[in-house]
Every structure is written in C-alpha cells, then in structure tokens.
C-alpha cells in the first residue's frame, strides 16, 4: 500500500515555516512525563505481588519464632487449637477442610460446567449463545456472600429436612458448603471451558463431519480431546477459586477445625480460619494472631501453584493451535 509520488503534485515552493511551529511546551512535556508515569502504574502491579510475598513471608517467620514451633510441626500437625495448653498449630485440619470443599464442589461444578460449555460451543445457535454468555457472566458476578446466605437460608434447611430423620446434619456442614461453592463456580468453569472449546480449529470439526461423524461424536471425540489440556487448565483455575473462597464457606461450613470424613459435619477452611482469627480477640503480635499469616502463606502458595500450572497448560494449548 505505497503511495506513488507522481500522483501528488509537488508544490513549487515549501510552505512558510511559521505555520509549522514546533510542538507546544505542554505537548512535549506530555511526551516526557507519560511514559515514566504509566511505567510506575505497571510497577504497582509488580509491587503488589512483592508486597504479598514480603508481608506473608515476614509475618510467617515471626509466627514460627513467637509460637516456637517448627515447620514440620505446623505442616504435619493434625490438631489446631490455639487456646489449648500448650497451643497446637497443626494446619492439617484446615488443609483437610479446604480439600473437602474443593473436592466436593468440583464434583458438582466440573461436569455441569463442562457440559454447559459443550452446549455453548457446539450446540447453541448464535443468537442463543449471544444471550447465554453474558447471562453466565452475570451469574459469575454474584457476590459470594449471597451464596453463603443461600446456604444458611435454603441449602442447610433442605438438607436437614431430607436427611435428618436418618442422620444428624450439623447446622454448619461441609456438604452445604460444597453445594453452594459448586454452584458458584459453575459459570466460571463453563465460561473458561467454552473459550477453550471455541478455540479448537474449525478444520478439525469439518474433517470429522466430512467422515460421517454425528455432532455428538464431533463434540466428544474430536473437540473435547483436542481441547482437553485447556479444559483441564480451566478446571484448575476453578478449583483454585474454590480453595480461595471465603464468605460462602465461612457461612456454610463453619469454623470447626477437624478432620472428619462425614460431610454432614462442620469443617474449617484456611480462609475461614483467617477471618475467624481476625474477628477473635487475639492480641496483635501474639502467636494466635500471627498464625493467620502462616495459614495465609499456605493458601497463597497453593492457589499460586494451581494458577501457574494452569497458565502454563493454557499457553501450550494456545501455541498448539496458533
């Protein structure tokens, strides 16, 4: 797209210089001020990460010093009771509670989310999809406190009404939390997986249809395997969201750190523990108060690891179909 010089007649004399005065002072100031300014903005995002790691690391070290326990005792301890004498700071009950919620909610969210992603990317006509996608985002934008409230208001009473005659259902119980957290992350699973499935090249679908495959076969045996790594990455992101979820589990599962298999009993997650310590009257600087940072560090490390792995998988997926 080059402009040929012949078509524009060259004026015999150059225009007078003064009509082309240089840039105003304000403008050249902008040229110099803006780049460093927005670089600082970008730097703030980096500083946030540095701040998180620094704060958590520093306070975690202080916790180990003040509480006088070792790393092994913290990571391997099966009892968590800061009020006991001597206080016990084992994180295993919190890890267990977090795992139960993440696992249970995945059982609900992953299959439903994936099926709905397949519907959106393979079956839904364009018009319907244009309505459903924003609706999903709307659903994903509902604050988690609302889901927590729903657990108290509806899910737990219904569980009690259905199961109580046979087995005792505690007011705060893991199952109720699994249900609301699962429902909460369905839109996330389906939206992320749908992005991945839509990115599977059309050529693969056409090749399969050209061989006489039905839509079902194309969806489950060509598109899904081709997008599998991306779908797994989206699963990982959703599970990490369930791990980091606070309000819904706080309201539904309670704050009782115990390792129990029965999902109808109360458990405590890492997030709920952090809020609970904060709401309690532990003095700033005491071992109990500092323990929230150590738990926060563990939570941060777990979710970060999941997010990084998911990011790497997604990157490879995108490269594969570039």
């Amino acid at each position: 797209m080059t402009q040929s010089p012949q078509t524009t007649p060259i004026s015999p004399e150059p225009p007078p210089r003064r009509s082309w005065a240089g840039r105003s002072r304000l403008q050249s100031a902008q040229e110099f001020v803006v780049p460093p300014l927005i670089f600082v903005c970008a730097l703030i995002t980096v500083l946030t990460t540095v701040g998180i790691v620094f704060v958590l690391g520093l306070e975690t070290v202080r916790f180990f010093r003040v509480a006088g326990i070792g790393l092994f005792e913290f990571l391997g301890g099966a009892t968590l009771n800061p009020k006991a004498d001597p206080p016990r700071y084992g994180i295993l009950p919190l890890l267990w509670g977090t795992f139960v919620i993440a696992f249970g909610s995945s059982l609900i969210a992953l299959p439903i989310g994936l099926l709905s992603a397949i519907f959106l990317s393979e079956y839904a006509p364009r018009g319907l999809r244009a309505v459903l996608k924003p609706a999903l985002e709307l659903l994903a934008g509902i604050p988690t406190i609302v889901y927590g409230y729903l657990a108290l208001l509806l899910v737990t009473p219904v569980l009690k009404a259905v199961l109580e005659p046979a087995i005792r259902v505690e007011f705060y119980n893991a199952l109720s939390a699994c249900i609301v957290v699962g429902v909460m992350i369905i839109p996330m699973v389906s939206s992320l997986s749908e992005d991945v499935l839509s990115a599977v090249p059309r050529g693969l679908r056409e090749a399969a249809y050209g061989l006489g495959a039905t839509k079902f076969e194309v969806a489950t045996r060509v598109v899904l395997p081709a997008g599998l790594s991306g779908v797994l990455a989206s699963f990982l992101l959703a599970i990490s969201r369930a791990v980091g979820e606070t309000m819904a589990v706080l309201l539904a599962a309670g704050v009782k750190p115990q390792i129990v298999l029965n999902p109808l009993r109360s458990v405590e997650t890492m997030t709920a523990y952090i809020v609970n310590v904060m709401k309690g009257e532990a003095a700033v600087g005491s071992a109990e108060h500092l323990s929230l940072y150590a738990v926060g560090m563990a939570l941060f490390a777990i979710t970060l690891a999941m997010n990084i792995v998911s990011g790497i998988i997604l990157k490879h997926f995108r490269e594969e179909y570039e």
Partner: protein
Amino acid sequence: MSRASDALYRPRRGLRRALGAGFAGLCLAATLSGVVVLVVLLGAVLVKALALPPNPPWFAVGEQLRELAAFLSRIASSTNSPNPELAGFKAGIIGSLWLLLLVALIAIPVGVGAGLYLEEYAPAGRLRRAIQTNIANLAGVPSIVYGILGLVVFSRAFGFQALALGKMLWAGALTLSLLVLPIVVIATQEALRAVPPSLRQAALALGATRWQVIRDHVLPSALPGILTGTILALSRAIGETAPLLMVGAANSILFPPSGPSDYYTALPVEIYNFATLPREEFRSVAAGGILILLGILLSMNAVAIFLRTPTGQRAASRAIAQLGRLGWSGRRAGRSRTGLASAVVVPGPGASGPDSEVAQPTDQGGAES
C-alpha cells in the same frame, strides 16, 4: 451403486442419533441449571425479605410489591440497630458507595496506565513477559490474601503509627483497588489490542508522536471496551466482603462515614453480620440487603453489557465525542496536527466507524498507484 465393502460398515444411525439427542439434552439441561440457580436464589431471597409482617396472601401481587418497596426503602434509610424492626443498611450503602468512588478514582487510572504501558510502550522482552505473567497470577490470588496485605500495609503500615490508616475507609478503598487492579489492566489490554493497527499506522504516517497517537486515536476507540471491563471490576469490588473484614469494616457502625478518613462499614459486611445473628428476623433484613446489593450489581452489569453491543459502542463513542466538543480532550484533538482527530471523534456508521473512516484514504491511495 454402492461398494461391496459397504457391508463391512454398520453405521447404526438410529443408536447414534438417539445418543446424540440424549447428550444434547444433557448439555442443555446443564446450561439451564444456571438459570434455575438464579431463579431459586432470587426466589428464596425475595420470600425471606417478605417474611416480616404484614404478610398479605401470596397471590396479592400488588400488595406484596408495595410491601417490598416499603421494606427496601425502610432498610435503605435506617442504620444498624439491635431491633430488627428498625435495623437497616444506610451506613453500609453509603460506605459502599464511598468505596466504589475511591476504588474508581484509584484503580482506573492506575490500571489503564499499566495496560497502556504493557500494550503500547513496554519493549517486548523479559520485563514485559514478567509483568504480564504477574498480572495473570494476581488475578487468581484469593481476595482474603489481599485483605491480609491491606491489613499489614495500609491498616498498620508495618507498625509505623504515623502512616497507619487503621480502620479508616481509606484502608478498605486501597485494598479493594489492589484487588481489582489486575481486572482493569487485563480489560484495558484487551480493548487496546482490538484497536486496528491500521489506525495507529495512519496516524503515525502523518507525523504524530506515539503519545499523540494514543491520546487522540487509540484511547478514544478503546474507551468503550475499557469502560466495560472497568464496570465489571467495580462490581467485583462492591460485592467483596472478606478483605474488608480484614481491614476494619466494622459491623457496629451506626453512622454513615462522613469522609474517607472516617470509620466505615460496607453493604456486604452488614449483610454478613445480619445473616449470622441468631434472631430469625435479622435474616429477613439480610435478605433485603441482598436485594439492594443485587440491584446495584445488576444495573452496573446491564450498563457494561449494553456498552459491549454495537448500539452501546456507538452511544459510547458519541458520548466521548460530546465530551471532546465540550473541550475535554477533543479541543486539543481538534487543533492537533495529526488531522485525523475529526475523523475519529465523529462516530462512524458502524462499530468500527473510526477504523473505516481512517483506513479509507489509505486504501484509495493504494488503489491509485
């Protein structure tokens, strides 16, 4: 004519068709589960909000609506109280609106700036990749971790009493700003990426500097996209509860904050507190609070979704043009030597208006040669 080998194929069309239909139905049901959840959720909350007396019969819709309106306006205009008949969310609503304002003032400039740097200025290389990865990971950090960060950095200032914000509204606003920052950055980047390169090239070819190109052409055409992402980020901020519990949003605040240096509470925090109170009547108050919160969120999301439609984009660029004529950025643009400004500021016939108007002269130039 068909092949002899056809006998070797048993396509079992009937079975496969049934299987396909069953699977499609399953997928549809999974998709609709979201709608079901929404209906159940809203229904349960509504019923609970209407549980307080007076209790007109369920079929008296008009009366129910009147009761709901009266209930909502009562809880919106009264502050916290130990008496559920009198308790309301005035302090929380005003606190949340303050938070919203401050987060918008902090997170939007910083987030858009960071997005601009990454897309337009950062040299491709290790630094840019590192910042990019960092932002992607920040977006996945649990909100409670931001709460811990805010607690140490803002509320306590690492123990420097002079700088500590304590339980001021500032602490909550700064914490939430960091929380939504990655969302704003990512939305900005996506919007900037959608601006066609031809627009940049056309302006650069006229002798504009990089900043002039961005200020007069790139930012205006990316603005609808940035706005959409920003609104979604703000609606995330207004619903967050956990980080605010860490940085001092207290439940026992009776008076709305008078300014950003006052003590504060927020709507979702108050909902949480009412929901955990033992008396059943407070649950109804909490339900009312949820309706108010969802109402605010829904209207914000509706604006964001509207801005994404072609009509919305046109309306947005028209509004931007109006602002420009009022002498905001457009007055400078009108005089700017790039000469493209008028073409960009005047909304084009379609969503890609600015692009088509700018690209055309270049195309014709190519055709002539």
